[in-house]
C-alpha cells in the first residue's frame, strides 16, 4: 500500500513525540497538534465508546490540551510536582487508511511513571490521525486506549500518555 507517510516516518514522528513527553517539553508536545487537534482517553470499561456520547477520562480540544501541557509545568499542579519520571515505549507502528492528507496510524504503547517511591504502568494502544504537510506530520487526533479494566493500582492519569 502506498501512502504519503511511510511506516518509518510515522515511527520517527511517534518516537519524537515520546521523547518530548519524557523530557517534559510539554508545550512543544502541544505544538505537534493541528489547530483543530484533539487528545482523547476513553473510560477503561468502555474503550470503544464515542467521545461526547460517553464519559471519557480525557476529552481535550486543542485549547484544553495546550492548557493541560501548561498546567503540568506549574508547581501548583500538585499531582506532578515534583514531576514524575516517565518512559514512553512505542511499538507495532502500523499505517492505516489515508483520506486526503490525513493518515491513520496505530501503535502499541507502555508508559512507566515513577514518583514518590512508586512506579505505575500504563499499557495500551493508540490511534492517531496524522496530517502530512510540507513540514512533516501534525496530529489531528490522538486517542490513547488503555488495556486495563480499572485504573488500579495507578489511581490516576496525571501525565500525558
Amino acid at each position: 500500500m502506498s501512502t504519503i507517510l511511510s511506516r518509518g516516518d510515522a515511527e520517527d514522528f511517534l518516537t519524537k513525540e515520546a521523547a518530548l513527553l519524557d523530557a517534559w517539553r510539554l508545550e512543544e508536545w502541544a505544538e505537534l497538534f493541528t489547530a483543530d487537534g484533539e487528545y482523547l482517553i476513553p473510560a477503561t470499561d468502555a474503550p470503544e465508546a464515542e467521545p461526547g456520547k460517553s464519559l471519557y477520562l480525557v476529552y481535550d480540544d486543542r485549547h484544553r490540551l495546550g492548557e493541560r501541557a501548561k498546567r503540568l509545568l506549574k508547581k501548583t499542579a500538585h499531582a506532578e510536582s515534583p514531576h514524575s519520571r516517565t518512559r514512553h515505549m512505542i511499538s507495532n507502528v502500523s499505517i492505516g487508511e489515508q483520506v486526503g492528507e490525513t493518515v491513520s496510524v496505530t501503535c502499541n504503547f507502555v508508559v512507566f511513571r515513577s514518583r514518590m517511591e512508586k512506579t505505575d504502568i500504563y499499557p495500551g494502544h493508540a490511534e492517531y490521525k496524522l496530517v502530512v504537510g510540507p513540514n512533516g506530520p501534525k496530529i489531528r487526533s490522538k486517542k490513547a486506549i488503555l488495556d486495563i479494566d480499572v485504573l488500579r493500582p495507578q489511581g490516576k492519569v496525571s501525565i500525558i500518555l
Partner: protein
Amino acid sequence: MTVQERRPSSSQLIVDDRQAASFRVKRDVFVDGEILALERERIFSTCWLYLGHVSEVPTSGSFVTRRVGGRPLLFTRDRHGKLNALYNTCPHRGAMVCRERAGNRRAFTCGYHAWTFDESGRFVGMPGPEALPPNASEGGRFNLVSVERMDEFKGFVFVCFDKNAESLVEYLAGAADYLAYVADQGADGMEIVEGSQDYSINANWKLLQENSVDGYHGQPTHVTYFDYLRSRDGAQSDLRIGGSGGWVKNLGNGHAVSESIGLLPWGRPYARWAPGWGEEAKPEIEQLNKEIMERLGPERGNVVANGDRNMIIFPNLVVNDIMATTIRTFYPVRPDYMEVSAWAVAPIGESPTSRDRRMRNFVEFLGPAGFASPDDVEMLELCQRGYANRAAAPWNDISRGMRSNAPRKTDELQMRTFWRRWNQLVSADPSVELNGP
C-alpha cells in the same frame, strides 16, 4: 477480644469542644486496622449504601455486577420488571457466579459446577441432580441469597446489609431533597452515562468524604484549574468566588451539603453558559433553562438549574452537581487504600450537543485525568503519609466556622456533621450529639 473490649470511647477519637470552638479528630482513625474493623461492622454493615441507578438495568434481564461495602453483588431487573440485589456467590461452593460487569440475560450459570439461576436468583438447575434427594432445593436453599434490604429513591438504588435498618427515606433525611434536585433535572428522568471512572487512592476513605465537600481547599489545591478557566473564559471566570460564597447545611444522619446558587465561575450544561462553549451554545442553554423553570416553577427551577451542590451522604456516597453531575462511591480495602467508582448522571433524552458539552465539562475538573481530581488525590495521599507522625502530631483540626451562625463553604461544618455521625456509630455511643455548630 469481645466487641465491648474493643469499643473506643467517643471522646477518645474526637474532641468536640463547643465552648472553645475546637473540633479535633485523632489521626489514628485513618491508620488503625482495629478502627477499620469497627467501621466494617458498625458502618458498612448497618448503613444504607449506594448500589446503582435504575437506568443501569433498563430492561428485563439487564444486570450489573458491583462490589458494595466490600461485597460482590449482582443487581438485576427480572422478567417481571422488579429490581433485585443478590449476593453474587454460588450457594453450592461459594464461587462468584457472574463475572461480567454488565449485560442482559435470563440465566446465570456458575462456572464451577454449572448450577444455574434465573435473573431473580432462583435456582433452576444443576448437572446430575439425581445424586441429591428430590427435595434438596426446597425452601430456596439453592437460590442466590438476596441482599437483606434494597430500596429506591427517585432512581437511586441503595442496599443495606442490616435487615432491621430504618427505611431508606428515613435514613436519607434531608439528603433526600437534594437527590430529588438531581432527579428533577431531566423532564424524562436521569440516566447513568456509559463509561465509569474506576480508580484508587492510597489514603483512608474518610479523607475523600471530607475532600468532596471541602470548599476551603478549592483555591490552594485547584489554582491551576481556575487558571484554565480564565484562559478559556476570560472575564467570566474572574467571578472567581470559587467556594467562598454559598452556605453549608447539616442534612441529618451525617449527611451534609455545600451549596450556592448562581455564583460559581464554571458553566453548567443546562443553566449557566460559559464563553468557552461559544455563542452558538447560548440559545440551547437558554431553552433548557426555560424548560426547567416552566416544569418546576421559578423557585424550584432556580435551585435545580442554577444551584451548585456538593453533597455527602453518610457513609460513602458523594453527589456533586457542579460543572456536571457525578455520583461517586468508595470503599476501604485497607486503612490506607480505597477503591473509588464514579459515574456521570445526565438527563434522559439530552440532545447530542448538550450531552457533548456535559461530557467535556465533566472531565475538565472531575475524574482521574481531570484538571483537579488528581491534585485532590495527591493531597489525600500526602495526608496519609503525614499520619506516620501521629505519635508526635496526633490531631486533625476541623474547627472552621464553629462560632458562625451562617457557616460558609470555606467553613468545616459539613465535615463535623460527617464526623459526629461516624463517632456515634464507631463508638456505639448514642449520646453523641449529631446537631451542633
